[in-house]
C-alpha cells in the first residue's frame, strides 16, 4: 500500500519533477532577471544564480544542479535589435533520461520565451551545448550501481541488527549471556560487528555481480568508498538497534525493519534522482542519513569525487550514526535494567 502511494506521488504528478539548474547571468538586465523568474515559475526548473561559470561548474560536477546555462552579455540589446543570441548550456549526463528531459526542457523554454517577447524577430534564440563539458556517455547502469551498493545499508544492516537482540531475547539465550560476566554494551558491540560483517558480504556480492554482469564504467575508489559504506552501514545498524529495542518479537521487528527499508529506498535516491520526487518527499529524504551515503557514493563512482568533495556527507553520516547509536544504547540499557 505504501509503495502504491509512493509511486502515485512520484509518477502521478502533472509535473514529473523539478530540475535544479544553475544560471550564470553575464548580462544582468531586467530581461535576464525576468528569464530567471519565469524559469522558477514553470515548476519544472528551479533556477539558482551563480556569480561566475567556475562556481556553476562546481555545482554541476557535484550534481547539485542538472544543467547550467550562461546568459551572454548583451542579451537584452540583441533581443531588441534582432541580433543572434546564443545561450550556452551544459547538462549533467549522469542520468541520460533526466539529461534528455532537462535539455529538451531548456530548449523548449527559450523557444516559447522568444515567441512571447519578440514575435517579430526572425532568428530564434539558439541554445548551444558546450561539448567540452559533456562527460563520456553514461547509461542507467552507471547510475544504478552506486545506488545498489547502498541496498545492504537498508536491508542487511538494519534487518540484521533488528533481529539480533530480539531473537536472543525471545529464545532466552540473552538471559544466559546476561547471567555471565559480559557487560551489556559488549553484547551490543558484538551484534554490531556481526551486522557489519553481514553487510560487508552483501556489498561484496553486489559489487562482484555489478562488475561481471553490468560492467559499469565507474570509478571504484576503494579508499573512499569503504569509509562511506562503513558509515552508511553503521547508520542502518543504529536504526535496526532502535527497532530491536522496541519490537516485541523477531517477526514484528523484522517486518518493521523491512517495511522501513522498502519505503526508504525510494526516498534516498537509490534508483532515480530525488528531483523526481515531490518536494515534501525530497525534504524527508534530506533528513535520512543514508541519502548522503547514496549521494557520496554516486559522486565518487560517477563524478570521480575526491575526499574534499565528500567531507560534508561524511560529517553528516558520522553525526547521525553517533546520535542514533547513542539512543540505541540508552534504549537497550533501559530495557535491560527494566528487567
Amino acid at each position: 500500500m505504501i509503495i502504491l502511494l509512493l509511486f502515485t506521488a512520484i509518477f502521478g504528478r502533472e509535473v514529473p519533477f523539478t530540475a535544479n539548474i544553475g544560471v550564470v547571468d553575464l548580462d544582468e538586465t531586467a530581461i535576464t532577471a525576468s528569464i530567471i523568474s519565469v524559469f522558477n515559475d514553470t515548476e519544472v526548473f528551479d533556477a539558482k544564480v551563480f556569480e561566475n561559470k567556475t562556481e556553476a561548474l562546481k555545482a554541476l560536477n557535484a550534481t547539485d544542479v542538472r544543467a547550467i546555462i550562461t546568459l551572454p552579455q548583451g542579451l537584452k540589446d540583441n533581443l531588441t535589435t534582432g541580433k543572434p543570441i546564443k545561450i550556452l548550456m551544459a547538462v549533467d549526463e549522469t542520468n541520460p533520461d533526466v539529461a534528455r528531459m532537462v535539455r529538451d526542457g531548456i530548449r523548449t523554454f527559450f523557444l516559447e520565451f522568444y515567441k512571447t517577447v519578440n514575435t517579430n524577430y526572425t532568428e530564434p534564440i539558439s541554445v548551444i551545448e558546450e561539448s567540452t563539458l559533456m562527460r563520456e556517455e553514461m547509461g542507467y547502469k552507471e547510475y544504478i550501481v552506486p545506488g545498489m551498493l547502498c541496498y545492504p545499508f537498508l536491508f542487511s544492516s538494519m534487518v540484521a541488527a533488528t533481529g539480533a537482540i530480539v531473537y536472543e531475547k525471545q529464545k532466552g539465550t540473552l538471559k544466559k549471556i546476561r547471567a555471565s560476566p559480559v557487560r551489556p554494551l559488549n553484547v551490543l558491540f558484538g551484534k554490531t560487528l556481526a551486522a557489519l560483517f553481514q553487510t560487508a558480504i552483501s556489498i561484496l556480492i553486489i559489487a562482484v555481480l555489478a562488475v561481471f554482469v553490468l560492467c559499469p564504467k565507474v570509478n571504484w575508489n576503494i579508499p573512499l568508498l569503504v569509509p562511506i559504506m562503513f558509515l552508511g552501514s553503521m547508520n542502518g545498524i543504529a536504526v535496526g538497534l532502535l527497532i530491536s529495542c522496541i519490537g516485541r518479537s523477531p517477526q514484528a521487528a523484522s517486518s518493521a525493519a523491512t517495511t522501513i527499508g522498502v519505503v526508504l529506498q525510494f526516498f534516498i535516491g537509490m534508483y532515480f534522482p530525488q528531483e523526481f520526487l515531490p518536494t515534501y518527499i525530497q525534504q524527508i529524504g534530506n533528513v535520512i542519513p543514508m541519502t548522503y551515503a547514496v549521494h557520496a557514493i554516486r559522486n565518487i563512482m560517477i563524478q570521480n569525487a575526491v575526499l574534499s568533495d565528500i567531507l560534508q556527507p561524511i560529517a553528516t553520516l558520522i553525526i547521525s550514526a553517533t546520535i542514533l547509536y547513542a539512543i540505541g544504547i540508552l534504549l537497550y540499557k533501559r530495557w535491560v535494567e527494566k528487567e
Partner: protein
Amino acid sequence: MPGKTVIEVEDLVKHYGEVTALDRVSFSVEEGEIFGLLGPNGAGKTTLMEILCCLRRFDEGKATVLKFDIVKDSYKVRASIGFCSQETLLYELLSVRENLAFAASLYSLKSKKFKERVEFSSKFLGVGEFLHRKVKELSGGMKRRANLAVSIIHDPPVVILDEPTVGFDPNVKREFWGLIKDLRNYGKTVLISTHDMYEADELCDRVAIMNKGKIVALDKPDTLKETLAGETSLHIKVKNTPTKEALSLLKKYDCILKDDEIHVFVKNPWEIVPEVSNRLISHGVLTEKIEVVEPTLEDVFIKLTGRRLTEEYKLTQ
C-alpha cells in the same frame, strides 16, 4: 570451609506493579550444601533466583554471593555462579560442543581449561556421546544435560538450578538427582528451586518453603516433617464390613474416618500395624489394605498455607 556462608539474602523485596513477588525474604546458604526453594508456581522462586544471578532488579534488601554484593559487584557475582534455567537456553543450530565453546568464551576460558571442562562434562554429565550433534536433534533429557554442562563450563563454585527436572519422567529425574548430588560431592554449593516435594526431600540438605513471596518455613526436610507435618498415619480400607463399624473397633487409637478409609495416627506405625490387624481380624473384619503413610513436605506446606503444593502434581514411582 565447612559452615562458610556462600549466599546471604537479607529482607529482599520485589514488586511487579501492585504484586509483591518477594516479601522480605531472608536466608543463607552454607558452602557445600544443596539448598532448596520449594513452593508452587508464583511463589517467587524464579524471581529470587534471577535476582541472585543479577538478571533482575529488586526494590529493597540486600544479597551477597561469596561475599560479593549482587549490585555493586555484579560482575564478580556473575563470574562465580553457574545458572541453569528451566528453559533450555542453547542455540539449536549449533552443536553441543559449539554451545560449550560459546559459553566458555563468555567466561574468557582459556583453551586448555576449556578442553578439561569439556572432558569433565563428557564424563560427569554424559554429554560426550552427543557432543558433536546439533542441539535441535537431541531429546529433552539430552538437552537438559547439555544445558547443565553449558551452565557449569567455567567450573563455578555456586550452581543455581531453576526447576532442573521439570517435565522429566521418573527414571530420568532420578538420574539427574544423582548428578546434582555429585555436584555437591565436587564441592559445589547448589541452590535449587522445585515444586516437587519428593525432589526437595531427596536432594536438599535444607529447604525453604515459599508461598506468595514469603519463606514460611526453613529447615532440614526431616525436621520440617517431624515438627510441622504431624504424625505418621495408617490408612486402612476394609472390605466386608461397613467402615464405621470397623472404626468403632479402633476407638482406643487416635483415628478418623476419611474418604471411606480409617486413618489412625501413630508415632510407631510398625509396632501398631500387627495390633490393629489382629484386632480387626479377631472381629471378622477383612482389610483390603493397611498402608503406612509418612508425612511429606506437602503435608508441611498444607499445614502452613492451607493449600496443596501443586494441584496437578503427580509422581509415578
